[in-house]
């Protein structure tokens, strides 16, 4: 191993350690790590820029703009109240409904955005019914991570995978991950409903009060809603057709975002741009450059070589290994840097003789996305909801969440193991 490679590993591990400890903001650390790789000459600036995946960044930015404008319309509040009324104000059924809405939202929007839209209306509904909001919040955390697994645009690991591997199109994700994600979602919500069934009771009077709500009044701007829904529909349609049209997913998302801005006018330009999570965008940039140091010095190839040696190049063992390692790792560390490291490693495995990489990619996606449900620090949505809940006087402790969510995550990965084995490996 060259001196350059040893330095690259050192920079990578120190950066990773700081990201895990969360003492300094992860964006600052990732950018500092990436810049260090360039400053030390491990990777040149031109090469570093070449490694930044602008498709991932464009897709994230475009969707953030669309969501920022759509959230102004009151659409999510309308849907949540309508769903609560459709199930006659029964808290147990509302738990199920809000879980499914969160999963559907997360399938097409960023998980953090989805929970940020769902949590306020959840507090509102549970306060009206005078039931404990914690079962609802835990269900929404779990549903958002499962929903995000089901599409190319649902979760950053999938966005990165779809961008890095040409064959993994939007439709490929739908065909391979949506049904299994929905199945896992139903199993998880059914178990959560059973666990919390005793806490989810309210009076007939409070149910009647909820049934009397006028959800239509929640729509604050009908013209903006029509424009937002038009752009969102065109964008989602674009995702379904992007392979056929030979355009990248980032082009679709950015086209949708700027179509919406064209329709709404300048008024929303500054507002929506200010809501783009630039910290997340720069976190990605830092990581791409950081991992490029490992790629350019041959460290990733060495790791791939070692992994292939460990599993004897057998697709089945390698897939299951990737699934479980990704899940356990993602339960404790950020799945974005993990996936950023794994993608080039799996690509190298292809060059080392594993010809069928498809089960490996799906194993990585399922493991990295669903693994986030294992602990309270496993995914950004978990941390955000726990933070909001604690601030509002309903703390979700690490232990309380672990006790419920970790077994559910293990169950989900067992289901995925069977799925991967039966669908791709027999």
């Amino acid at each position: 191993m060259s001196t350059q490679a040893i330095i690259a590993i050192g920079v990578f591990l120190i950066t990773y350690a700081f990201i895990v400890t969360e003492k300094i903001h992860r964006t600052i650390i990732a950018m500092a790590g990436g810049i260090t790789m360039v400053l030390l000459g491990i990777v040149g600036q031109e090469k570093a820029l070449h490694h930044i995946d602008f498709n991932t960044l464009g897709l994230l930015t475009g969707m953030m703009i669309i969501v920022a404008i759509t959230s102004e319309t009151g659409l999510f509040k309308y849907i949540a109240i309508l769903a609560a009324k459709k199930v006659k104000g029964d808290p147990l059924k509302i738990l199920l409904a809000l879980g499914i809405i969160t999963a559907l939202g997360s399938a097409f929007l960023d998980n953090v955005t989805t929970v940020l839209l769902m949590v306020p209306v959840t507090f509102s509904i549970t306060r009206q019914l005078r039931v404990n909001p914690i079962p609802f919040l835990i269900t929404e955390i779990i549903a958002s991570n499962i929903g995000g697994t089901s599409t190319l645009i649902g979760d950053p690991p999938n966005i990165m995978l779809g961008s890095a591997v040409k064959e993994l199109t939007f439709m490929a994700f739908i065909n391979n991950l949506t049904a299994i994600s929905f199945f896992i979602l139903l199993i998880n919500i059914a178990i959560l409903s059973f666990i919390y069934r005793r806490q989810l009771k309210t009076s007939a009077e409070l149910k009647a009060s909820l049934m009397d709500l006028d959800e239509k009044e929640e729509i604050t701007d009908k013209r903006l809603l029509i424009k937002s829904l038009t752009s969102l529909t065109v964008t989602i349609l674009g995702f379904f057709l992007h392979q056929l049209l030979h355009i990248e997913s980032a082009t679709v998302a950015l086209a949708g975002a700027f179509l919406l801005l064209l329709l709404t006018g300048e008024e929303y330009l500054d507002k929506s741009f200010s809501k783009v999570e630039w910290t997340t965008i720069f976190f990605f940039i830092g990581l791409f450059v950081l991992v490029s140091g490992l790629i350019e010095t041959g460290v990733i190839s060495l790791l791939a070589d070692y992994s292939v040696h460990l599993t004897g190049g057998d697709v089945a063992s390698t897939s299951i290994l990737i699934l479980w390692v990704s899940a356990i790792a993602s339960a404790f560390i950020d799945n974005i840097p993990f996936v950023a490291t794994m993608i080039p490693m799996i690509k190298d495995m292809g060059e080392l003789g594993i010809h069928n990489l498809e089960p490996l990619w799906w194993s990585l996606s399922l493991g990295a996305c669903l693994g986030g449900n294992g602990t309270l620090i496993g995914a950004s949505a978990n941390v955000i909801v726990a933070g909001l809940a604690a601030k509002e006087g309903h703390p979700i402790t690490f232990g309380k969440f672990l006790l419920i969510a970790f077994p559910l995550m293990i169950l989900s990965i067992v289901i995925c193991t069977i799925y991967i084995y039966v669908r791709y490996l027999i």
Partner: protein
Amino acid sequence: MRVEYSYDSKLIQLNESANGDDIEFFITLYDNELKKKLMQVRKYFDDNKVLTDIHYYIHPNNNYQVIVRNDFYNEFIIQLFSQQLLKEIKWV
């Protein structure tokens, strides 16, 4: 010291009662123009970073239910006043 308020009963009807640890307001607006003003009060609380300060529920026929957390009671009253939904507020 607590806040006492008065309003124009031709334009608005406002009843408050205890709801657990919170205060619950039932508001009826007799003038559609006032809807925008009440929306501004809601927006004020929506825009801050506290999610459980007030819970705002819209019922048919310009009826509103607002559950206000005890520690946000005065702020809520002040916001109603600033939107001219209340005529007068004073410490008693």
